[in-house]
């Protein structure tokens, strides 16, 4: 896999590796093996889902890509760079919870990454406006998070992740806590954004349906310690919309992914 050693310039071309993990393992201080060994390559512009039973370490994998957790062994490259020397705006992260500062308005929350990087005020205002427009929250800029619904809070979180114009968007079960109607709406909006912005997306979920609906590839993980056992390509109609959700094609993919997931979960339960 020489593509993984590609230099910076080539990585940014379509088809280059945006994220690559090799032989990554994570063992917690108490000796519990949480992850791996894990090999993972995500191409630039790709939408990939990590799907696995709860507690399989998929969130840990995402946090390792983000540099929030250190891998115990193995190497991590993001946009062709190691964790230490990458720019702080390579990655946008969306947590499972909206993770907003309750004391700050929507605008201030979205602006946070720019403030932390000392971006001049004029420039950051323009970028915040753009990010808010992308998630459809322009009118709610001066509102406090508590006044928003769960779905809107998640949109703020998404806008904050987009405001730095990152190459890679890491999403950790972002819609898991939302009701289905809101989740479907956000799924569609996320796909629209992805088609427009062509970010690389690594999306962690435990929903078979969500992973099939959103991704180009679904990576199936085993129970703890999580390993990737299958790489299922979802070659389906584009652009995906509510029509896709009710198509036989969608059902067939869901069946395949579901079966693999069941197999992977069983394979891991011995440990």
């Amino acid at each position, binding site marked *: 896999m020489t593509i993984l050693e590609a230099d910076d310039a080539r990585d940014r071309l379509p088809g280059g590796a945006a994220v690559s993990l090799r032989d990554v393992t994570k063992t917690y201080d108490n000796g519990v093996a949480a992850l791996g060994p894990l090999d993972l390559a995500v191409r630039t512009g790709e939408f990939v889902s990590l799907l696995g039973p709860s507690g399989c370490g998929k969130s840990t994998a995402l*946090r390792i890509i*983000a*540099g*929030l957790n250190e891998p115990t062994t193995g190497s991590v490259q993001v946009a062709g760079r190691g964790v230490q020397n990458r720019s*702080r*705006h390579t*990655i946008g*992260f969306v*947590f499972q*919870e909206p*993770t907003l*500062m*309750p*004391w*700050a308005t929507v605008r201030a929350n979205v602006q*946070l*990454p720019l*403030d*932390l*990087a000392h971006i001049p005020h004029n420039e950051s205002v323009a970028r915040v406006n753009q990010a808010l427009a992308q998630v459809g929250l322009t009118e709610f800029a001066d509102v*406090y*998070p*508590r006044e928003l619904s769960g779905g809107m809070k998640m949109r703020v979180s998404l806008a904050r992740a987009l405001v*730095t114009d990152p190459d890679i968007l890491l999403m950790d079960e972002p819609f898991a806590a939302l009701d289905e109607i809101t989740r479907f709406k956000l799924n569609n909006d996320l796909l629209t954004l992805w088609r427009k912005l062509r970010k690389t997306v690594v999306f962690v979920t435990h929903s078979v349906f969500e992973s099939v609906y959103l991704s180009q590839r679904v990576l199936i993980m085993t129970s703890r310690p999580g390993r990737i056992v299958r790489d299922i390509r979802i070659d389906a109609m584009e652009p995906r919309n509510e029509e896709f959700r009710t198509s036989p094609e969608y059902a067939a993919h869901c069946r395949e992914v579901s079966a693999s997931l069941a197999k992977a979960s069983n394979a891991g339960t011995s440990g």
Partner: protein
Amino acid sequence: MTARGTSPGKYLKFVLPLLALAAGVAVWEALVRINSLPVYVLPAPSVVFATLVQDWPLLFGSLLTTLSTTVQGFVAAAVGGIALAVLFSRSKWLEYALLPYAIILQVTPVIAIAPLLLIYLPQHVAVVACAWIVAFFPVLSNTTLGLNSVDRNLLGLFELYGASRTQTLYRLKLPSALPHILGGLRIAGGLSLIGAVVAEIAAGSAGAGSGLAYRIAEAGYRLNIPRMFAALLLLSIAGIVIYLGLSLASYLVLRRWHESALGKES
């Protein structure tokens, strides 16, 4: 039933305590008059009030003295408590080294420390020091609690975006700890008044104090019971005003985002 939203309930919350107070005062007044109790046994509320008006110049001066001590002790406790908590959050070593002594200072009754402080410090400093000692710990412990209860994911986010320690402190930890800090300050306000009174009582025997507590002690020696009640009344009012003021400040600061302040709205 929630008092919120229903206007009769809202009124009752304020009217009932006032009615209870009026009834209590009326019964007190009646008992004193019916039994013709002498003022040195129990002065009637009307006599206490008359004394308050008559002695106002003296008592008001004393009130200002006590309040000044209280405010100085409170400010020292607020600044010292918050600053030390921030230092503790930065250096575990410092926390391990100093926290036990902060606790010892807290659990030792201030009334027992006051006479020693009066020996070693100039009187006005000793009095402020007493107020500081009692008020300091709640600020320290509440701020520490607040600084330690920051959302882990928000911390992760700050780390992801390369925030410096100073940025994390001012933009995340302190705002996030604010409800706890304000809670600590609200307790500290009342406690610094207690500390000031305790110190004045301890210093009073030295005969140089002029605060309200000293007036109470002095009036006690002279069997001037109405003045004792009048001074006590002023102290109570001062405590209530301090508490309400700090509650209001806390509400104004938090009203737009914190749960504790939201219940009072709408």
